[in-house]
């Protein structure tokens, strides 16, 4: 005879960070230089083990970037961050947000930090799920992803 009691809702946790996870990090993954023609770039990938077939996945991310060049007479610049379940394009877009990439002038660059939070409800017979975090800049001259990058996923029992 065996008895099992589940008290905790947090079942699994997966994460990715730069090393070191700081502004202007020396991690070889950064800097990532973006222009208006760079397109969507991959920032991070995490795979979360799953205990249950149906779950809420709490996704969160932090990204630090720097606006290098001024955009004096063009539209205000922006960065679109996306979270895909699976790979970009072939996967499912579960979340996106857009933050300002504006600023900077002849006096210097502008630093920014963006944070993301989302809950993805999934139903799958698979034992794990992969999420990817991407960025795409538009209406910019030059922006660099300089760190930090934090990307986390937590399986929460429904």
């Amino acid at each position, binding site marked *: 005879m065996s008895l099992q009691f589940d008290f905790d809702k947090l079942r699994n*946790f997966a994460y990715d960070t730069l090393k070191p996870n700081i502004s202007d990090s020396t991690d070889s993954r950064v800097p990532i230089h973006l222009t208006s023609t760079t397109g969507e770039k991959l920032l991070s990938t995490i795979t979360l083990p799953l205990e249950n077939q149906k779950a809420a996945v709490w996704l969160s991310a*932090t990204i630090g970037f720097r606006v290098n060049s001024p955009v004096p007479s063009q539209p205000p610049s922006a960065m679109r961050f996306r979270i895909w379940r699976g790979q970009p394009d072939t996967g499912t877009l579960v979340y996106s947000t857009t933050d300002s990439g504006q600023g900077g002038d002849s006096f210097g660059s502008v630093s920014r930090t963006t*944070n993301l939070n989302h809950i993805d409800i999934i139903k799958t017979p698979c034992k794990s799920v992969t999420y990817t975090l991407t960025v795409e800049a538009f209406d910019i001259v030059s922006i660099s992803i300089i760190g*930090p990058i934090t990307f986390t996923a937590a399986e929460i029992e429904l």
Partner: protein
Amino acid sequence: MFNTFIIQFDKLIHFVFDKLNPNISNSTDPRVPIVLAPDSGPKLLSAIEVPIEKKESIVWLSATIGTFVEDSINPSRLIFTILRGNPNTGNIVFSTADSGQGGPTYRTSTFTHVDQIKNYPSSKVTYYLTVQAVDNSENINIIGPISFNGAEIKK
């Protein structure tokens, strides 16, 4: 006869937090405003002590800080740093920079980090959250809110 009772699943082991009271913009908490004058060094915003129960653990850290820039045309930045162990000489486990430009401009900065703990020599670890203003020609004020959280998660 052999009975086995297994009651477990304990991923979130501890949760600690610090916040202003009230935790709002322009808070009346005596800890704010914190005035960041030009060329002033790092200032301590918050500290949390996280009990460490497992030899190998993960600490999921998150923070929100509200700031106000009265007048700063030149691009300036606020560098937020999380140190482990000591507010001045501890390990820098995380840092990020957010814009200090504007005027008058309110800004909310939020960030998360995951710190990996392995064979830590103590049963608790203290994290310190600091801020430093760089390249600002006028004062930048920390006006609240300040939230600083740490969750110990079993690996």
